[in-house]
């Protein structure tokens, strides 16, 4: 365990060198919230409706605020990119020859970076909350908050595994890195990072409920924002767990076949 703690420390050190980068990302996110807010304000104004799919203008803005904060914590896209690059450039070799679990290594790196990012994001968003406090819409069932740390951790692990599974295809398709941009867009859409998924027709939402993606972003936000029933909460947690197991198995299989094809090129 201590070795992964040290990995976490090292990546803190590395990350701190690029602190401006983090701050920049958070500031960019604030502007994105503003842009989304402006879009929906116009939308509500033109459509002359008070609510859409159960969202008012303010609850939808709250959704985006939460999305960016939770999103920074959960996002594991960078890890996926690093793994695919390791495979492509042969950097994976130096992990293979060391007594360290490769995915465990990246997991601890991701967690430590996420904690750093989260703290910077919170620092920047707290003033926003303070200013908009009155207009924000929360519908929380207090008891459900007990489960919230669990839901967030599972969401993080789930997202991590989705990204890892995708990136391991680099064993089979060399130029995978160019698909990352596309993957991010599709993933964002499916997970509820573009708009709240429940404004979609019920039938489509029904399909989404069977996929892993919405349990990464949409599900944790809806607990705070819209409020969900206890049975929905447990359904969501169960879905998170099942998908984590399924993805873990997929990753094992991809790894087992992929590593035999790995040529360690570039070294």
């Amino acid at each position, binding site marked *: 365990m201590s070795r992964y703690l*040290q990995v976490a420390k*090292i990546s803190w050190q590395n990350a701190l060198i690029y602190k401006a980068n983090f701050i920049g990302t958070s500031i960019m996110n604030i502007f994105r919230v503003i842009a989304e807010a402006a879009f929906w304000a116009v939308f509500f104004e033109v459509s002359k409706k008070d609510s859409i799919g159960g969202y008012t203008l303010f609850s939808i803005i709250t959704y985006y605020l939460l999305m960016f904060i939770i999103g920074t914590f959960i996002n594991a896209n960078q890890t996926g990119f690093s793994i695919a690059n390791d495979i492509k450039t042969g950097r994976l070799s*130096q992990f293979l020859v060391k007594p360290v679990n490769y995915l465990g290594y990246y997991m601890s790196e991701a967690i430590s970076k996420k904690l750093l990012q989260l703290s910077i994001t919170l620092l920047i968003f707290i003033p926003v909350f303070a200013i908009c406090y009155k207009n924000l819409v929360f519908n929380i069932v207090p008891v459900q908050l007990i489960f919230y740390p669990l839901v967030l951790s599972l969401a993080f692990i789930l997202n991590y595994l989705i990204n890892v599974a995708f990136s391991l295809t680099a064993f089979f398709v060399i130029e995978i890195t160019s698909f990352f941009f596309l993957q991010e867009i599709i993933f964002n859409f499916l997970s509820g990072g573009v708009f709240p998924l429940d404004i979609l027709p019920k039938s489509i939402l029904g399909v989404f409920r069977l996929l892993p993606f919405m349990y990464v972003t949409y599900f944790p936000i809806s607990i705070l924002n819209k409020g969900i029933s206890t049975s929905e909460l447990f359904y969501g947690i169960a879905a998170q767990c099942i998908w984590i197991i399924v993805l873990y198995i997929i990753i094992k299989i991809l790894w087992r076949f992929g590593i035999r094809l790995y040529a360690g090129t570039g*070294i």
Partner: protein
Amino acid sequence: MKIIEVDHVSKSFNIVKKEEGFMSSLKSLFVRKHESITAVEDISFDVYEGEFVGFIGPNGAGKTTTIKMLSGIIYPSQGSIRVMNFIPQELKEEFKMNFSVIMGQKNQLWWDIPAIDSFLLYKEIYQIPEKMYRNNIDELSELLQVSHVLNIPIRNLSLGERMKLEIIAALLHEPKLLFLDEPTIGLDVFSRRKIRDFLKVINKERKITIILTSHYIEDIKALCSRVIGIHKGKIIYDGPFESISQDLFDSKMVTVTFEYDAPELDLKRYGQLLESNNNKLAFLIKKNMLNEFGKEMFTGRSIIDMNIEDIPVDEVFEKLFDIKERAEMV
């Protein structure tokens, strides 16, 4: 005791072949030509504990592929390998605790932070006891004279300093076996000598078995008690360095540039002509003939430049291969 056993090992890669040009790039999206390339073909050898073995051979001969198989990074296509009684590609933890690989053109230390911080991670990964860790850092950085750069971010260091730190990192956990793939590539003579002396010491005093590939013949010559020559994926020589071919190492490569076109020369008794190019001639000259050769060159001729150097390893190798091929033909 045997530390490495390689038994009839082959490795082939499947690669995608593409013809030149844009249209064929488009075509390759749909139809791909795969080709199997044999990187290593039916090689067998054993290495004993404490040996210092040099792999030599031209680029693409299969040296790095062999090292990658020995360290478990890639799977052999055929044959069996045992290293310290482990099957390398299973990558057992205990196996990994006992060896290190250094690839000359790859950084393993973190680019943005000082080496000393990266070392801490190595300490945890390999679970090195505090005392052993301190002693090794002190001793190794003293030997390589890099104590003063331990606290400077890697990106601000010279290539030579970086390589020395990479070597220290690889040795912190006191491995029994060390693979070095072109550790001195691109380094100046001074750093190379330093690293050479260092490797000699750790092989002798720490009894570390070392497998080295290098492009510099002096490296191999100074260090390796045994040389394995690889060419086109096959082992063509395995034995002590001295008996590769005595006259090759008794010679120097001399390049002479004349002011005007090169004269016709009869130099049979000094050595042989390798190459002639307008006003530039390259010779292989026996060391004990260098003096006389020089005298002859400088008398009555106008010379702009004269360069005396060790024979490049590829050159040695080609000769070696020629000799072998010729022997086979006879």
